[in-house]
Each structure stands twice: as structure tokens, then as C-alpha cells.
């Protein structure tokens, strides 16, 4: 199988997936305290509906977003609200959070399943909304909003993103291997909500076991209804899992600059999100735990852990035996993730992995000037000239870079990866976007 791919740019970073790809998903013991940030989604921060010292049960709503774009937040443990105060946040640096002390005597909450096929589209969509599900690939866009495209959009295809093209990360891989029935069933729930018939699950060819299992399960379930789910292998190339590249790879449709997938009739969902949709639609279980890859060579034991949202990193590090020669902590993958300055950061709904990198795996050398080699231009999957953006930003003229298409940049980091001068290209692009917005 040759595998489909996107038309330009892209890189082949070392995968490092061997550290965790063969490790089964493992349940991490519930921590004594969770920190639940009020911003774990794209949109307005949620407003707390609980008070200090109030008792809450696992799965109870603790914060909601009423009118604006956002998602409901649920308690991931049973216990008492200790405080509502500012805490470190993986991408926002600091953010208000609800802190809950666990009641050690409380038993884990049980959920009963019913038959989702008897529910209407509206009922299913309401369950997704009530569960507080957001896109778990990293952007955190509220899923119930994504599943309600404007009537003008003619959606015909659902795409499931099983590329997992970021090095190190193996959560979607393990979920597809261990819970393929739930993923396929979740896909069908999504199809019913969208009122369409066909879904494609795109998986990179470096996960042949997942391609096998998912194809088999998709085939077995195909007789039961008229909803078609098929699996397609894709070339191993970063950023195969980026939305626009993925859509092109699987459908040959190019999303225009500034456009959204529904402009070309497509909706994309992440594997973990689909699993959450399955649990919400069949058991009305809110999203408050998820599978996260903890990897990198600086942590004693690597693992794919099912953790409660709100678990702070220091608890995970203790559970995994501590660190050695730790140089950098990254929330997310090494290409697009954010560096952390403290272990007090909690796992949020959108955390797909946390990497503990040692001095062999990362470097903190200073960067040099641009020598115009043009390698970033060759690597850019959007066909931009990243070097120009960097030079403009360094010269204090970041606000003039819109004509270079800086808003097409989704910060995949290919340019920074190939740069021989180790220039922080992604940071330059972020600064350019901020400068343009500031300039009005």
C-alpha cells in the first residue's frame, strides 16, 4: 500500500514512538487533588457553578459557558471544592481553576449504557454538549458546535484523524488497537448526528497493526446499517495529521486559505474525541478522563495512562518514578507542543501527551541569523516562505507579514525543524500574528 499524502512540504522527524507504542493503556490511580482550569476549550472561559467547601460527585458539572462559545466542565473526582483560584496552565501560562480535594472513601461512579440508535440526532447532539466534549487533538474546539455546521455547508464526508504524526505520541494508536469497536461505533454516532453516510479513518502506515484492527472492525460492523466506515493508509510524513493536509490526503480537496473544512464538505474529528463521543452518547459519561502519552527519555518509566483531567504533572511524575537529566518538559508533541516551566501544570482535556526530554533529545543552543538557505520554504506544507516572516519580526516589522500568508501558518514547526541556524520560526510566526492583530 503506497499511502496517500499531501502535495507539498513536510518532513520526516525521528518518531521515538517505540518508547510507548507497545505499552497497553494503564489506569493511573486517582490523585488526592485535581486542578480543573476554567479554560480547556476554544472560546470563553467557563463560569464556576460551585462554591468553596461545596461537596461534588465525580461527573458533576462544576462550570458552564452560558451564551458564548465554550464547553461545560465536570468534576473528575468526588470530594470537596478547596478553592477557586489562579493556577499554572499549559498554554495560557496562568488561568483560574477549580481545585477539588478527593474524598478517599468515595467509590468510582458507574455509568449504564443504553442504545444510542433509538435516540434522535438532537438528543445525541445534546448528550455530546452535556458531556463537555471538545476537540482533543489540541485545539479544543467545542465538538457540539463543530457538529452543527451552517445549513449552507454541504457536508458529505466525515474524516477521523488517526494520523498521529507527532513524534512520541501514541494515545490514538493505543485507543485504536485496544478499543476499536468503540471508535467505530463512535464514528457511526457522529455520522448520525451529521446526517451523512460515509466516514474515512486516515491512519499513517507506521501503524500497520492499527490499520489491520480498525479495517477488520469497520468491515464487521458494515452489515448492521447503511453507514459506511472505511480505513485508508497514509504516507508517514509530518504533518499528515494537520487538518488541511489530512483532508487533501484523503479526499484530494484543498481547503482555501482562511477557510474551514466544511468549505469543502468535510468534518474532521480526532480519535480520542470520537471515543469521548461514544461514551457520552451511550452512557452519558462526561469528558473528565482521557488517555495521555507520557514519554521522553528523562522520565523513569514511559506510559500511556488513562488519567483524570485536572491531575497535576507532579503526581504523574511521582507515579512514573521521577525524572533524570531532565532538560525540557513539553505539553503535546515535540513539534507543536508548549514547553512547561513547572510541574504544577494540570492535565487538561486537550493534553495528548507530556514529554520529559533529556539533553540528548533536545537542545537549548542559541539561534543564529538567517542565511537564506531556503530549506524552510521547501519544508512548509502551506507553501509559505517562513524565513521572510522571521526576518520581518526580527526587524520589528511583523505587522507587515500578512501579505506573506502568515495566517495560513498553523505552526506545525517543519520550518524550525529543518532550519540549520536553529531559528525559532514558530515563535516568529506567532509574534507576527500578534503584531498584525495589534496593528488592527
Amino acid at each position, binding site marked *: 500500500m503506497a499511502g496517500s499524502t499531501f502535495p507539498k512540504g513536510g518532513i520526516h522527524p525521528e518518531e521515538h514512538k517505540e518508547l510507548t507504542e507497545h505499552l497497553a493503556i494503564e489506569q493511573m490511580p486517582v490523585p488526592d487533588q485535581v486542578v480543573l482550569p476554567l479554560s480547556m476549550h476554544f472560546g470563553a472561559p467557563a463560569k464556576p457553578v460551585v462554591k468553596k467547601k461545596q461537596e461534588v460527585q465525580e461527573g458533576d458539572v462544576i462550570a458552564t459557558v452560558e451564551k458564548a462559545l465554550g464547553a461545560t466542565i465536570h468534576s473528575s473526582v468526588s470530594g470537596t471544592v478547596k478553592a477557586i483560584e489562579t493556577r499554572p496552565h499549559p498554554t495560557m501560562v496562568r488561568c483560574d481553576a477549580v481545585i477539588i480535594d478527593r474524598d478517599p472513601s468515595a467509590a468510582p461512579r458507574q455509568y449504564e449504557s443504553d442504545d444510542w440508535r433509538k435516540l434522535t440526532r438532537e438528543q445525541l447532539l445534546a448528550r455530546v454538549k452535556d458531556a463537555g466534549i471538545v476537540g482533543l487533538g489540541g485545539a479544543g474546539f467545542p465538538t457540539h458546535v463543530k457538529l452543527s455546521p451552517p445549513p449552507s455547508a454541504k457536508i458529505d464526508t466525515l474524516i477521523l484523524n488517526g494520523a498521529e504524526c507527532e513524534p512520541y505520541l501514541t494515545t490514538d494508536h493505543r485507543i485504536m488497537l485496544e478499543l476499536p469497536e468503540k471508535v467505530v461505533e463512535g464514528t457511526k454516532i457522529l455520522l448520525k448526528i451529521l446526517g451523512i453516510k460515509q466516514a474515512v479513518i486516515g491512519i499513517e502506515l507506521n501503524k500497520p497493526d492499527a490499520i489491520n484492527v480498525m479495517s477488520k472492525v469497520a468491515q464487521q460492523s458494515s452489515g448492521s446499517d447503511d453507514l459506511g466506515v472505511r480505513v485508508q493508509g497514509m504516507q508517514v510524513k509530518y504533518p499528515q495529521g494537520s487538518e488541511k493536509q489530512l483532508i487533501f490526503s484523503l479526499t484530494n480537496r484543498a481547503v482555501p486559505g*482562511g477557510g474551514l473544512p466544511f468549505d469543502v464538505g468535510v468534518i474532521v474529528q480526532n480519535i480520542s474525541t470520537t471515543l469521548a463521543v461514544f461514551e457520552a452518547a451511550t452512557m452519558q459519561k462526561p469528558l473528565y478522563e482521557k488517555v495521555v502519552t507520557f514519554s521522553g527519555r528523562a522520565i523513569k518509566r514511559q506510559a500511556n495512562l488513562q488519567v483524570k483531567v485536572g491531575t497535576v504533572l507532579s503526581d504523574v511524575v511521582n507515579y512514573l518514578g521521577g525524572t533524570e537529566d531532565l532538560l525540557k518538559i513539553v505539553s503535546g508533541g515535540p513539534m507543536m507542543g508548549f514547553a512547561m516551566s513547572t510541574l504544577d501544570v494540570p492535565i487538561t482535556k486537550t493534553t495528548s501527551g507530556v514529554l520529559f526530554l533529556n539533553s540528548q533529545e533536545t537542545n537549548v543552543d542559541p539561534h543564529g541569523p538567517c*542565511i537564506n*538557505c531556503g530549506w524552510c520554504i521547501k519544508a512548509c506544507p502551506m*507553501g509559505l516562505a517562513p524565513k521572510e516572516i522571521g526576518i520581518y519580526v526580527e526587524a520589528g516589522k511583523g505587522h507587515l507579514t500578512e501579505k506573506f500568508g502568515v495566517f*495560513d501558518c498553523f505552526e506545525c514547526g517543519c520550518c524550525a525543524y529543518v532550519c540549520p541556524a536553529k531559528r525559532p520560526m514558530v515563535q516568529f510566526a506567532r509574534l507576527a500574528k500578534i503584531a498584525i492583530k495589534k496593528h488592527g
Partner: protein
Amino acid sequence: MWTVSASLIPAMLLSIYVFGLRGLLITLVSMISCMAVEAISQKALGRPVSVSDGSAALTGILMAFVIPPGVPYWLPIVGAVAAIFINKELMGGLGFNIWNPALVGRALLMAAFPVYMTAAWIPPIDWSKSAVDVYISGGLDAVSTATPLQVLKQYGLSAFTQQFGNLSTVYQNFFIGIKPGCIGETSALLILAGGLFMMIRGIITWHIPVSTIATVAVLSWIFGGETWFSGQPLVHVLSGGLMLGAFYMATDYVTSPTQKAAQIVFGIGVGALTLLIRLKGGYPEGVAYSILLMNCLTPSLEEWFRPKRFALPKQAPVAATK
């Protein structure tokens, strides 16, 4: 950049065989003075000293490779000041220079010391006649020759074949590098090998060298002879600094464009200007000036040839205000 320097070692070794140790010594003086000028000017300008990146060393080697082997030892030091201090550090340092530093060095020396730069040639050592002492003192007293392009320009093709042998001998000697010329530019074979090595390593692509050399070949065939379409393309391709210029100077990242189409236009420009100077200009050789002139166009070529976007924008972006 140390890799690029390493790929020039074979050409350096051949130069020792052809011109004696003097070529090596001039090259060392040039390299060390470029590194020293960079370190001193960076210190003076309050910048971090970046001599270890190999950029100044490479400039020094390339500058020596395009000056005659018989020049006095202090000459490259003057060139280094022009190449590194004026052209590079005063422009803002690595990445901000408009012109190729090695060629700026050569251009300044050509303008300021034309006698040395156009007459300090050494004939290739004839190993069947010479003793080892000639090899060691190589060239100190042997400055009575002319480069093939000088002969071709002043006396025509018949005088050229009289001095350098019939055309097949010329092709063979020139291809290997047995001819008078600048220190490192004589051997097409070894420069080609170095260029291929850089292509395999992904340091350069074929676009600039091939378009440059092809343009010189085609134009010299059309315009280089007594009548139209009677020129000798191989004589022009194998003579002077064309091979070195096409593979090592015109491909300099900082001063050449990044897009393939722009690189081909750049190469055609270098080739056409080279031949214009060689056939109609006052100098017998024009590779250095051609590249420097095309360097001026690089920013515009970057502007005219944009990379192809993944998809066009939904609406045209609002024009950025200047």
C-alpha cells in the same frame, strides 16, 4: 560550511601539483586573515564572535581560489578587509550581505592592484623538466605567462591553439586543470566532483550551476566564433573561473535566490553577463562581476518568484499598509 570547505580540498591539492606550494600559502594567508578580520570586526562592533561557524574560513579559501598564485602574500589580507569587514560585518553580519564576500574581495583587488591581479600568473610546472626546488620556490620568478582567456581575447583562436595545443589536448588539460589561472579555479574535474558531493549532501541543487554553464555554452557557440554558430563552447566552459563560480560562488545561500525558477533566471543572468564581458568587455574574464551584478537582483527575484501556496485564500487578504 566546513563541509563546503572540505569539498574544496581536492582542488587545493591539484593546485599544489600545478603551481607549487605558493598557492597553498596564499590560500592559508587568505583564510586566516578572513577569520582574523571577522573576529576583530565582531569584537569592535560588539557582536558575538562567530568565527567557528566556518563562514569566514570558506570566504578566505574561495577568495584565494580566484586570485592568481603569483601575487604577494599581503594581497589577500587587503582582500579580506573588503570581503569581511566592509561587505559582511558592516552590512549587518552573516546573512545580511548583498554580495558574495569572496568576490567582493576579488573585485576590490582587481580595481586596486590590477597589475598583480592580471599578470601574476604561473605556468603549470612541467614535471618532466623541473626539479624539486622549482616546486618549492614555485612561481617566485615565473610570472611570464597569460591565461587562456587573455590569449583568446587578444590574439584569437589560432594563437590560443598555438600556445595551449590542439583543441583535444586543451580539453583534456583544462578539464583536469593543467593550465595557467587562479589558484583554485583550474580543474573543472575536481570542482565538478566537489559540486556533485554538495548536491548529494543536499547543500546545493543543480539549478544555478547547470543554468549558468549551459547559458555560457550556448551563447559562446552562437556568438563566440568568427561567424555565428561557430564558437567553441567547451573552451569557454572549461576556461577561467566559470566552473568554480557556477558551483561555489553563484550558489551562495545568502546572495542567491531560493526558488527554483528564480535560480534558473539567476544562472542564465550570470552566464549571459559572463559571456558579454568575455566577448565584448574590457576584461578577458567576467564571472566574478557577473555574479556580483546578479547578486543585486536577488532580492527582486525573491519578490517576483513566490513559492506556490497550498491553496489560494478564500478572499484576497487586505493589502498590508507600509
